[in-house]
């Protein structure tokens, strides 16, 4: 049965199940947890101009739906027609985008930009240069105009796309020529409103401002000094070693599977719902193991994804599940490919475990949303006495 998952009827059934869960999950959240539009934010450009403009909730919810469509198109281009549909299905059943979109997180909108960028890359690879370039520029435009740290990410994103062979020198010429035109306004306004830029950057790149940890470094240094080793104290505990450790810590945390597949870090600061269902960890790990063992073309996904980790790494407290959602497509593509390989390699037991776990966690999550999640939310807003 699993081998025939790509057959039309089965595929339709899986997609229908995914869409049903997509809808019901969002309806449950809307019905029971009062988070609708709670975390609406303003885009970078609006902040820069000092305009109090919030991205409307409808646009974010629309992006959430369009992300599903884009994932289907990109997924089919990356993974092929037979299994590409799994990526949007996995997106549909993931609580992560559901919670973020309904609360109004701007990162769902930025994710839409990232997916447009991916779509552009795949089109360019198919020699649809005009359309590909247009999507790439539109996608990059959306990301950069929405979040300041994406300005830093942009060169690395392009470098990653270039190094991974997504477009050649010849094909990238048009992008390199047109990109400054797209970026010109934001660069112009950034130069014009340098004070605002500094404030926004300090908010988005808060890594260097953490007071608590710096205090503990000072306390540690004091302890070493009072023990009679002041020079050793200075060498071991100083700003450079502290920041180095902090950056490594933030980076490594984004690579840990428990960040995405368990409730280690609470969604929106209160939830016990994991960003992605635990069952999908099995195909994810299987795919990673295969990538280690054999040369897989899909490894370039990592190269493209690494720069997208920057917004969360540059935060004081990592992982920031808000900005980290930008790498959700990569996780979903890898999990989809892992599922494909599990099916192809006849690892039936694992496929059954995945289905059982997803079904179990899906129903538990819906039940939890209708019963405990509202209380958890209330407790987070109004801490228990």
């Amino acid at each position, binding site marked *: 049965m699993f081998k025939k998952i790509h057959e039309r009827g089965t595929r339709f059934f899986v997609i229908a199940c995914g869409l049903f869960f997509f809808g019901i999950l969002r309806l449950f959240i809307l019905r029971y947890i009062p988070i609708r539009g709670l975390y609406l934010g303003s885009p970078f450009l609006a902040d820069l101009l000092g305009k109090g403009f919030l991205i409307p909730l409808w646009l974010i919810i629309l992006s959430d739906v369009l992300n599903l469509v884009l994932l289907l198109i990109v997924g089919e281009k990356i993974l092929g027609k037979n299994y590409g549909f799994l990526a949007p299905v996995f997106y549909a059943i993931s609580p992560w985008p559901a919670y973020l979109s309904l609360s109004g997180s701007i990162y769902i909108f930025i994710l839409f930009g990232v997916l447009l960028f991916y779509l552009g890359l795949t089109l360019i690879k198919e020699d649809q240069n005009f359309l590909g370039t247009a999507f790439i520029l539109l996608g990059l435009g959306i990301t950069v105009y929405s979040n300041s740290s994406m300005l830093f990410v942009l060169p690395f994103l392009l470098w990653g796309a270039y190094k991974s062979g997504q477009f050649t020198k010849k094909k990238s010429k048009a992008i390199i020529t047109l990109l400054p035109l797209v970026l010109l306004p934001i660069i112009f306004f950034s130069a014009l409103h340098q004070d605002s830029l500094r404030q926004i950057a300090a908010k988005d790149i808060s890594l260097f401002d953490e007071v*608590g*940890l710096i205090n*503990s*470094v000072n*306390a*540690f240094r004091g*302890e*070493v000094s009072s*023990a009679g*080793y002041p020079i*050793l*104290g200075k*060498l*071991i505990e100083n700003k450079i*070693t*502290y920041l180095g*450790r902090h950056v*490594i*810590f933030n980076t*490594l*945390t984004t*690579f*840990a*599977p*428990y960040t995405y*597949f*368990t*409730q*280690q870090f609470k969604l929106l600061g209160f939830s*016990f719902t*994991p960003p992605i269902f*635990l069952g999908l960890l099995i195909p994810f790990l299987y795919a990673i*193991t295969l990538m*280690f*063992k054999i040369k897989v073309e899909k490894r370039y996904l990592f190269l493209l994804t690494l720069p997208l980790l920057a917004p969360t790494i540059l935060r004081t407290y990592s992982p920031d599940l808000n900005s980290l959602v930008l790498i959700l497509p990569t996780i979903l593509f890898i999990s989809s490919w892992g599922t494909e390989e599990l099916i192809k390699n006849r690892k039936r037991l694992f496929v059954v475990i995945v289905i059982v776990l997803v079904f*179990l*966690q899906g*129903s*538990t999550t819906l*039940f*939890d949303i209708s*019963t*405990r999640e509202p*209380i*958890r939310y209330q407790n987070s807003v109004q801490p*228990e006495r």
Partner: protein
Amino acid sequence: MSKTKILIIILAITLLGGLLRFYKNWQNPVSLTVDEVSFGYNAYSVLKTGRDEYGKFLPLSFKSVGDYKNPFPLYSMVPSIAVFGLNEFSVRFPTALISTLSIPLFFLLFKKLTKKTNITLFATFLLAISPWHIYFSRYLSELMMAGVFIGAGIFFFIKMLEGKRMWAFVSAFFFVLSTYTYYAERLFVPLFLFVILAINLKTLIKEKHKLFIFVITCFILEIPLLYSTFFGNDIARANMVFITKDIEFTRNVLLDGATVSFSNIANAPLLFFFWARKYLAYFSTSFLFYSGLPMTTQGSYGLGALYLFEAITLPLGIYTFIKGKMAQKGIVVSWILLGLLPASLTNNEQHPGRTILILPAIILLSALGLYVLMKLFIDISRKYVRYSVIAVFSLLIIWDLAHALVAFSVYFPKERDEDFMNGTKEAVEYMLQNQNNYKEIVFDPYRGVIAPYIVSIPHMYILFYSQYDPHIYQTELKRTGDDYYGFGKYTIRKIYWPRDKNSKDVLFIGSPWSLNESDIGAGNVLKKIYLENGSLAFLIVKTGD
């Protein structure tokens, strides 16, 4: 590399490992823990009378305050107490010794698994300097001992597969011994044996006698423990620490305080996913590289279970391990994956002790990564780039080692001494010197700088440091009640100064929470005992004549 050279290197690494484990281990950790004095005095009691503090003859499970203790750590202490007397060193000696001897043992195991001398030496060296290993080697740690026995069991298991049937006895003996040493192994060993037997079933079916000897030896040696577990009191401990008692689970997941009621069936999936979270949290960067070891206060960058430079070598090692070929890969994988199971099923957040049994496997992967990294460095063609990269990586290692040294010698004694009941020895020693002047001595078991939430067992410290005659203690009448315990002239109970100040010729020992200096009057405070960070731990107070 010649055998003599390897032998010299292993000897040197073992000596270094021994130095790091034994050096002033009677002073650092700063004080004996509740478990250490309890084990120590019971071992002393067994040495003198053959019975534990409750008068039970050579028991297989030792009753302690609140739970039951495993037999091996206690019996292993008897010879060292006989030789060195009842003191800090003799209590910590068996753990440090077994841990030091585990270095050459793991060399042999690593060699069996990798077949490569260089990787084996890297792994042995990393084990010798491992902060995780050193931390649990410097004080009584049954979990460390059990981890070593698991390693020995695996080594002889592989030897059994390759050679004589006598190794089946030895392997089974060590696996079973580990279950007599620490509770986590009672869950781990059966599962692990099931898996590694299944993995090697093809080989073992050809040599059925080995399989038969191994299984029968395990079963016969386990009979007393099985009896004790299912018909004795050991199950009490399992119930006490099981995941369902986790505060995070009951408070934040089940929402115990909520007015909504939920059925137990509906809670089961939540428990499963909560467990999965706990299990995967053992792979967290915070645990592995930042603050996995409880050596500094929470929320700060302390010392991880591994060194920070291993954040590079470990992933590289995992990559190489998956990609490359290694004998008994399945054993290494199941060792790690099943080794985390007992710890993840208990009610603590990331317990480095309960997972130490997987440390050698992790170290092996890290060493594999280190080996590959070294090869990568050497292969860099441009000389200045090569030297620069090696210099940067060396600096990171030096920084890491210096940081660990400072964490062990400076941060740890200052920041965690209260957890090790620092100050109790000083209080007991003062009391023993002056006890003849008083008709009763009252010791308050509640202490703590932030709040009096730490419940100590002062009577064990009194028994330990006074070397109280076990014959007398086993037979004399004890005064017991809901909130007090007493023997001889010693009473352990909560002090209530407004009432107690009227008693005559009584010496009181308690924290500032029960003995407020402003209420007592400076003249009656005989001694103040401070923690390493300068906080007041105890006041010793007399009442008016």
